[in-house]
């Protein structure tokens, strides 16, 4: 018996790619149409601020799947195609060119776009954002060894960029409006560790500092900071956050509130429409609140969950959030979103750049951040999942293996 249904996915992103591939691996035999605005098949974003910017890898190597693999899976790829609206009554998406594509079920995986600066000079060539492969290639073409690179925003993207541009021989200058680095994501002591680590690696960091104007005749030549200081620079990279691409859903009348509102099964307010990845705002049972995550793991696993849900699986999607970043020689990983902890335990030596800090609430791990110790962090995740009662003494004692605490 053939399946004559058509499942359409808008957004050829990491999440969209996983929806498409998982539909097939879960046995869906109907038609799958994956529509993407960019000309690229789904690609990995982590290398864009690291290996791909350094020039160590090719663009093709960032693709999640080979084009041939997607074709063999009979995934109908429509690249360079922007969807302009969804007609929920007729169950069609309408592309910018007026093409109408009918669906039985639809997944929206449109991700997020960079938040832009609108200050004097922000249109000058040399002012960049980093979100896409094309952004990376453009930045790479513009940088010259020995020149100043100004980075606006001391978050993950800004700091990864600062590290890579330093490796490429630029002088990286980071301005951050808040009083600490990565303030939205990490705890104050980790912010301090990052400040110290980047400073030791030659990055010039200015906290409590914004940007007033970019200057230059035909292209960027300098910038004036909020403290009045003028900085010469040939390149500026702005990393001040992203905005979910939820307009398509909002225009179609779906519930939207900091992203597309979905239930535990990634279903939107229309039961035939699903959403996953950076654009989706889901109820997380572990965090006991709604959250929109901007992470690799969420884009992948929520995409897989959406595919299963589209096929009738009712298993809820709820995972402990997990993030990572690579900056210079530090692999930074985080589990949970530690809030309201009552005590902390540090395992290892921060001064050696190899440690994990656990955040505990009532004797249970509420989150953790590791620097160059992914293994202990992983055991921490397991302890957190099982809500094990643990003591600061045991967690901090390198003589006690964390796997032993799991068994106790």
């Amino acid at each position, binding site marked *: 018996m053939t399946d004559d249904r058509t499942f359409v996915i808008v957004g050829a992103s990491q999440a969209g790619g*996983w929806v498409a591939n998982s539909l097939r691996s879960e046995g869906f035999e109907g038609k799958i149409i994956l529509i993407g605005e960019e000309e690229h098949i789904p690609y990995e974003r982590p290398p864009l601020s690291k290996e791909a910017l350094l020039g160590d890898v090719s663009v093709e190597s960032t693709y*999640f*799947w080979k084009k041939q*693999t997607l074709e063999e899976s009979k995934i109908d790829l429509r690249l360079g195609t922007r969807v302009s609206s969804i007609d929920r009554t007729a169950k069609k998406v309408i592309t910018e060119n007026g093409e109408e594509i009918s669906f039985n079920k639809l997944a929206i995986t449109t991700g997020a776009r960079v938040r832009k600066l609108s200050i004097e000079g922000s249109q000058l060539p040399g002012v960049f954002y980093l979100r896409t492969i094309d952004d990376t290639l453009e930045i790479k073409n513009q940088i010259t060894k020995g020149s100043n690179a100004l980075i606006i925003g001391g978050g993950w993207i800004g700091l990864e960029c600062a590290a890579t541009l330093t490796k490429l021989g630029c002088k990286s200058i980071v301005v951050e409006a808040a009083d600490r680095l990565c303030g939205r994501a990490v705890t104050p002591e980790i912010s301090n560790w990052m400040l110290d680590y980047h400073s030791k690696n030659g990055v010039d960091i200015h906290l409590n500092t914004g940007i007033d104007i970019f200057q230059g005749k035909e292209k960027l030549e300098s910038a004036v900071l909020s403290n009045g200081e003028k900085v010469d620079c040939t390149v500026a990279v702005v990393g001040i956050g992203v905005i979910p691409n939820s307009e398509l859903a909002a225009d179609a009348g779906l519930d939207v509130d900091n992203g597309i509102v979905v239930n535990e099964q990634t279903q939107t307010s229309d039961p035939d429409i699903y959403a996953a990845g950076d654009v989706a705002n889901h109820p997380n049972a572990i965090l006991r609140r709604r959250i929109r995550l901007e992470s*690799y*793991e969420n884009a*992948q*696993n929520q995409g*897989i969950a959406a595919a299963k849900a589209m096929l009738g699986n009712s298993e809820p999607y709820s995972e402990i959030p*997990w993030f*990572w970043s690579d900056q210079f020689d530090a*692999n930074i990983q985080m589990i949970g979103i530690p809030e309201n902890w009552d005590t902390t335990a540090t395992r290892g030596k921060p001064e050696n750049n190899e440690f994990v800090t656990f955040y505990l609430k009532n004797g249970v791990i509420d989150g953790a951040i590791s620097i160059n110790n*992914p*293994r202990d962090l*992983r*055991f921490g995740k*397991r302890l957190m999942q099982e809500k094990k009662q643990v003591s600061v003494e045991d967690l901090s004692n390198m003589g006690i*293996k964390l*796997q032993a605490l799991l068994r106790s």
Partner: protein
Amino acid sequence: MTDENIEFHAVATTSEVTEDEPKAVSIGRLDVGIYQLDGEFYAIDDICTHAYACMTDGYIEDGQIECPLHGACFDIKTGKALTAPATIDLRPYPVKVDGDQISVGVPKVDD
């Protein structure tokens, strides 16, 4: 791969490889991880097929090794890629145990 084309290398002792702590070894240009499961020893490629990471730094549970970087899981006995983001298997190698000596068989390299 026939037997004549495989060369065994003594690379570890049984006490160096526990259920919790695998051992990473280099054999020529190959990076291999040696594991113990239920008293048996297994050897698979140590570099994740998805991105550059040493699998032996990962997390072991239920006969699977989870990559420390991006969380892909592989079957320790067969090297089979079990979860995203990996789609390519790790290569398994034959293992011989003689007394407390563990040897791993890898393809012969012509000098």
